[in-house]
């Protein structure tokens, strides 16, 4: 189901947690709310769920105003970071809970509930564990039960609050792919909150980057990574270098030398140059370049990270090189950014 958030404001005892946030979620979409802690992403998720009520603004499910409905009436599926499984119930009872508590008129028969719960357990690859208690499961298994439980009620929208936050790195990666598969098979409109950019970029159809109670940028993972529209998004997503430069006649200048990058159409004046460590090319001579002395090199998986000292007044610059390119400390390297962005204050 389509979900629209319109001009939502939320204050917690006068402290604004969300400030005029609007967001359209298309039916069947997998959306990530990404941001540092305190950015309001969890608050937004809980507002959609109905676990919080907005100070101002409206949430629509389809064409219906959902803000007037309680969390029970909204028919959503919510998955908590720490699972929140009912510890005194078996896995099967946990998954069936949403159906068994329905009033007699809307409740499927016992056999149907059991069948549906077993199907869901099969979907989340936990067949055979239906008689276990949550305490007898691993973290990853518990989160799958929580997901099956949320899907049992055929929710309008599936909301996940840092679903993999409490799991270790390996399990997290596995579950990420698996969640994408489940989503593609079931087609639920899904919103999940994460502070892990890899998770958001790998998993989501669209990523919503949030900061300080506002949406900074909404876009596909490619758009977010390749064309960040604010210094915050550039700095928050991926690695980045920031240098204070000067624009003069369509050329970029660092201190008193040109760095060999033309910025046609940019107005003259000071600006901040943002570029990623891998978006560079090495140069032999230096007709126009950024040059620096190698201070530290680190081998990280398939690349070599090189830290350069480009002059005492600037912070260190990090670039990524192919691992076969061996650089010794104190050697001199010249490069120029191939893909970059300018931001002005």
């Amino acid at each position, binding site marked *: 189901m389509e979900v629209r958030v319109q001009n939502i404001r939320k204050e917690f005892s006068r402290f604004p947690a969300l400030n005029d946030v609007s967001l359209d979620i298309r039916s069947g979409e997998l959306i990530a709310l990404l941001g540092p802690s305190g950015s309001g992403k969890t608050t937004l998720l809980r507002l959609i769920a109905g676990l919080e009520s907005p100070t101002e603004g409206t949430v629509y499910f389809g064409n219906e105003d959902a803000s007037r409905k309680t969390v029970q009436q909204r028919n959503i*599926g919510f998955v908590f970071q720490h699972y929140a499984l009912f510890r005194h119930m078996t896995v099967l009872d946990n998954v069936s*809970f949403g159906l068994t508590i329905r009033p007699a008129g809307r409740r499927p028969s016992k056999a149907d509930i059991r069948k549906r719960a077993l199907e869901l357990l099969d979907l989340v690859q936990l067949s055979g564990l239906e008689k276990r208690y949550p305490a007898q499961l691993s973290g990853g298994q518990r989160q799958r039960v929580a997901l099956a439980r949320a899907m049992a009620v055929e929710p309008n929208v599936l909301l996940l609050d840092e679903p993999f936050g409490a799991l270790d790195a390996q399990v997290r990666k596995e579950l990420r792919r698996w969640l994408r598969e489940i989503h593609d098979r079931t087609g639920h409109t899904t919103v999940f909150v994460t502070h892990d950019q890899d998770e958001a970029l790998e998993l989501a159809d669209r990523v919503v980057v949030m900061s300080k109670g506002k949406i900074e940028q909404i876009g596909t993972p490619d758009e977010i990574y390749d064309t960040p529209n604010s210094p915050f998004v550039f700095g928050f997503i991926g690695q980045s270098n920031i240098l204070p430069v000067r624009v003069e006649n369509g050329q970029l200048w660092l201190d008193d030398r040109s760095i060999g990058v033309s910025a046609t159409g940019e107005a003259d004046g000071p600006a901040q140059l943002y570029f990623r460590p891998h978006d560079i090319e090495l140069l032999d001579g230096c007709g126009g370049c950024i040059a620096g002395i190698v201070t530290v090199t680190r081998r990280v998986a398939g690349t070599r990270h090189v830290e350069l000292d480009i002059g005492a007044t600037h912070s260190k610059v990090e670039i990524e090189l192919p691992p076969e390119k061996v650089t010794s400390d104190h050697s001199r390297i010249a490069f120029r950014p191939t893909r970059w962005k300018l931001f002005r204050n």
Partner: protein
Amino acid sequence: MAHDAASHGGTGNTELVRVATSEHRLARYGLIGLALCFVGLFLVLPLAAVFTEAMRNGPGEFFTVLSDPETFSAIRLTLIVAGIAVPLNLVFGIAAAWAIAKFEFKGKAFLTTLIDLPFSVSPVISGMVFILLFGSHSLIGPWLQSHGIQILFAVPGIVLATVFVTFPFVARELIPLMQEQGTSDEEAALSLGASGWQTFWYVTLPNIKWGLLYGVLLCNARAMGEFGAVSVVSGHIRGLTNTMPLQVEILYNEYNFVAAFAVATLLALLALVTLVLKSLLEMKYSEQIAASRRH
């Protein structure tokens, strides 16, 4: 490793390899002995004395004194009072713990302190409070009298005093447990469509049932054993307003030692049964209890 450590410690040669928890043998046995002595002297010995005194003239007399009508009425009254006070405090306790643990509101700290009040005030004072409230010189005393409502020196007064004194047991047991468990289980139930009542019945209550049971056992033990507050409001009318602890005192003051200790035995047995019951439950459901704390 442990053995090594002990022998090193024992010979006092070296302090190099030593487990943090292993002390000198003398120190260990000394401390254990000290603890056992203390338990024996202050717990086992008095308990044994109560039982031997009660059985001094054989089991025949033991049962004869217990079937005395005044003593019998004291036992009945104690059961009635506990039967009213414990369920009331069960409900109050859950409600108070629920409010404090799951919601944020102004005056929460004050309410928490208030719940502890009966623990910090001497029971005698608690009894006095009810005398001041309902006595013939109080504001509502004359009104009660003119309507023929007897609260002091009657069962209602005893129940009120007992409820007051035993109020904190259930709430105190539940508040930390509920706070630790947080609200996400309840939120999960609500998000799945459960009503408030269903959430409480199927999720909250099962989560706290072991703590609740423990609180109820403690509450019951105190309700049956309360002396100070009840003594002030009861009026000591024989065969009418004497509970078991009061009856013990009266019998003892009349030098009727066997009878006094016989009733005391029943109270002591209550304590023992409570403890055994609690241990049995913990043994039988240790996994569930651990799971409800872990998770």
